[in-house]
């Protein structure tokens, strides 16, 4: 019983982090209908920025989150407005090629700037743990989960209640109608990408705290985000959360009860099954890209 509780707790903690890392990808896919293959690079940018800022300012890495998110917001806006939008205007598949190319270039730029060596962000509580009953919790992973839940909730509230959130949702649901109502769709697309990039940066901080990272990891985080989005459904924080938690729990349950070598096998098996049974994801919503 203790083992099941411990495995589920580990899975939920891991899943929360997957969810945060995927929500930006989900939003861009849902609203802009763009598969952003440079998502992992945005995640790593957040990790490297947090490492630099927390070292330079001698503050807790989680406290660098506002600065990192603002930085990535600006990068995301410019990236979408001046590169991706131009590619989308020509043909939608161009955006995939463009983001793939940008990911390759930025990965090499990161190697040049930061070296290919693994880095890690080590806050004062990096090695702390606590117990709740029989279940042991890794403090840094729990703090990462807490940060994920707070950020996902804030994003959900922002999309639901803020004027910009309503405009983003309207644009996602009926682009033409939003345009007819006077919405500057290009600006909304760029803002959506900017918000997504900011969340990818925040995810990077959380990931940097719990895992060693290097420029070569960018592909993993794009792939994980893709799987989470397919599982949970595109375009909403709730979909990313469900997909992420499911992925985390499946990962740890498989590692514990089938074998530590098999989480990837079950992850992709689940992906295939879901694509067959429920291709819009568990929370498949009315956003255009999922129809």
């Amino acid at each position, binding site marked *: 019983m203790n*083992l099941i509780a*411990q*495995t589920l707790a*580990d899975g939920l903690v*891991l899943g929360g982090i997957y969810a945060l890392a995927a929500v930006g990808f989900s939003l861009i896919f849902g609203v802009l209908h763009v598969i952003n293959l440079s998502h992992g690079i945005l995640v790593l940018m957040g990790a490297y920025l947090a490492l630099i800022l927390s070292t330079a300012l001698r503050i807790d890495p989680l406290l660098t989150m506002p600065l990192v998110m603002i930085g990535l917001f600006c990068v995301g806006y410019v990236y979408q407005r001046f590169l991706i939008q131009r590619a989308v205007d020509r043909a939608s598949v161009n955006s995939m090629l463009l983001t793939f190319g940008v990911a390759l270039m930025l*990965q*090499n730029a990161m*190697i040049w700037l930061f*070296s*290919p*060596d*693994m*880095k*890690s962000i*080590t806050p004062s509580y*990096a*090695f*702390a*743990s606590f117990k709740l009953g029989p279940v*042991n919790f*890794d*403090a*840094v*992973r729990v703090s990462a989960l807490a940060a994920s839940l707070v950020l996902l909730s804030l994003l959900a509230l922002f999309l639901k209640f803020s004027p910009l959130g309503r405009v983003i949702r309207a644009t996602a649901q009926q682009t033409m109608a939003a345009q007819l109502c006077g919405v500057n769709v290009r600006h909304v697309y760029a803002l959506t990408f900017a918000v997504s990039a900011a969340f990818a940066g925040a995810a990077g901080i959380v990931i940097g705290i*719990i*895992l*060693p990272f*290097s*420029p*070569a990891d960018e592909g*993993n985080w794009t792939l994980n985000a893709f799987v989470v989005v397919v599982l949970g459904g595109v375009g909403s924080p709730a979909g990313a959360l469900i997909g992420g938690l499911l992925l985390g729990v499946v*990962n*740890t349950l498989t*590692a*514990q009860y089938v*074998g*530590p*070598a*098999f*989480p*990837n096998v079950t992850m992709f098996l689940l992906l295939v099954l879901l694509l067959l049974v429920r291709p819009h994801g568990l929370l498949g919503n009315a956003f255009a890209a999922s129809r």
Partner: protein
Amino acid sequence: MRRRDVLRTVGAAALAAPAVRSAQAQAKTLVFGGSVPLTGAAAETGLNVNNGYITAVSYLNDKLGGVEIAGEKYKLELKLFDDASDPARATTLIQRQIDDGTNFFLGSFGSNIVLPTAAITERAKKPMVQTGGGSDAIFTKGYKYVFGMYPRATRQFASTAALFKTLTPTPTTYSVIWTNDAFSKTAGEGVKLSCDAAGFKRLDAFELPAKPTDVSSVLGSVRANSPDLLVCVMHDQDSLLIARQMVASNTYVKLLFQGLGPQLASFREALGKYSEALLCSTYWDESVPYKDKFFGDSRKFAEYYRSKITRPIAYHTAGAAACIETYILAMQAAKSTNPEAVREALAVADYETFYSRIKFTPDGDGDPIIMGSMIGQVQKSKLEIVYPEAASSAKAIYPQPAWDKKA
């Protein structure tokens, strides 16, 4: 032709003549081809390997003015390309170099890259001396032209198991974890073979995915079974993940051995005080006592390296430089730069270099006794050699202190 034009032509010819003569007298060039991972997942160690190649060539060309083989002077030239840690790209690069006439190859880093590239150089009958691939598959396919600076993976753990036997109180049980990649899988097999043969009781053997993100379930089993020794054979980044999660989940074993990881300064820095008493394999240290025909000894090699490159020196760097030195020694012994003759000389090599004594098995991997690993242990943030006794700079700490007692 006007007089001024004649003077101009004669003047130009007079100026050019010494340049032509000096070009004729210039040393011949010996080209070493290959690929190294300067980007991608293996880039961290790939860069160390690349720096080793550069250091050796720079020293031999700039300090010694080239090398003499069969009475002729040769300058060395590297033609190495970034394979981005991608075996498919590496094979394309190697094939292209073979088509372009390159005769001698240096290895990439990672068995998954060395294995397919060695198949290509073997087919072309061109030697490859490498320090990046230890998987058994490289040395058990009957290849005649590939030589490695370490014993094959399943033989690499023998010296570590021998160290375990010397510890007091003698450990009795062990568990082993490896990741699902070409090197780590065979290294895991080697751990089982060596530890079982040495009489240790195996409690668990775990295979992780190639790129794990969470090992909590495995550590749960380790806590439940409490082995005396936990052996992890995987690449640096995954070793760090395991060590961090062990500390955070308070998973204690009397001794944690991580094949790769603690030898890197970045690893020790990331773990801080918790890296104390962790063990790892190392194939070279500045303090090894070997004499060297070109560099003098290990310390002089390290000094020269530091005068050229700021990146911290690693054993892969020394191994890579030794690959080039081994080639030169074989060419001098063969009195030839013919690939077939050089291959024959490499097969019977028995040279002392700053890195180690170089002697290959008939299958091409390093002799397990002569070129086997030393064992390093982190002591006060520095890597000290604790085994074999002849090369040791400190005594092994065993059992390691509890995580919260590490200072």
